[in-house]
């Protein structure tokens, strides 16, 4: 894989900036001939990952770097912040689904990403977090 197939985007942590990332991903996915539904899924995954970084990373430089890697049959995107990382105590579990108050509680972002994408890998530490996501053209 050469740099020929990489796009790098740096956005500030700023309301609505996740849309810039999502739209950039959308055009790349379109050029790769993903279908409409998959393009929407990719946009959602980018949006949720960026919002998580905005909300939880406490990053000092207030920036997110997104690396898009176009492969023959899949799009990989790595979303990196230089924040404080995931709290080691908060093991992530999917929220319960039965009661409104549970429903309303946040905690759906990662769940949505995992459902819509083919691979999700989180590397996190006190120097920051990288969420690597793979979406394949055919499931």
């Amino acid at each position, binding site marked *: 894989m050469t740099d020929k197939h990489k796009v790098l985007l740096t956005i500030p942590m700023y*309301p*609505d900036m*996740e*849309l810039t990332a*999502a739209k950039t991903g959308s055009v790349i996915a379109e050029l790769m001939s993903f279908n409409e*539904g998959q393009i*929407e*899924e990719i*946009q*959602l995954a980018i*949006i*949720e990952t960026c*919002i998580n970084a905005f909300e939880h990373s406490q990053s000092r430089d207030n920036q997110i770097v997104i690396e898009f890697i176009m492969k023959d049959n899949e799009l990989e995107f790595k979303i990196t912040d230089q924040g404080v990382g995931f709290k080691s105590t908060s093991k992530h579990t999917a929220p319960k*689904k*039965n009661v*409104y108050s549970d*429903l*309303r509680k*946040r905690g*759906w*972002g990662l*769940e*949505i990403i995992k*459902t*819509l994408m083919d691979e999700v890998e989180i590397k996190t530490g006190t120097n920051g977090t990288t969420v690597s996501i793979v979406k394949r053209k055919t499931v």
Partner: protein
Amino acid sequence: MKKALNIQIREAEEHAVIEMEGYLNDSLGEELSEEAHTLIEKGYTKLVINLEKTSLINSIGISILIEIIESLDEHEGTLNFCGLTSTQERTFRMMALAKYAGIFPDEKAAIANL
């Protein structure tokens, strides 16, 4: 002014329809929430939210939809959605939203099933 641009309300005898355009995030979600609560205060208990022109919905937007379902439920009302993309429908089902609100292909069906 801002409201007029992004949110349309259609009030009928028995029900009201809310239609939004754009990206349903926290800020559009707040506008939506205000409109919905105004309608509930007016006495409407049967609402349709038409998402045909809503291009993207993030998880904060979905939480706000859940809050509206909850408010309606307190008034023994009903909420139906229409105009969802298949991805939106998948997300709504995953988050069990579909248990508490109907999902219909178009506004006509959503209204008929209130």
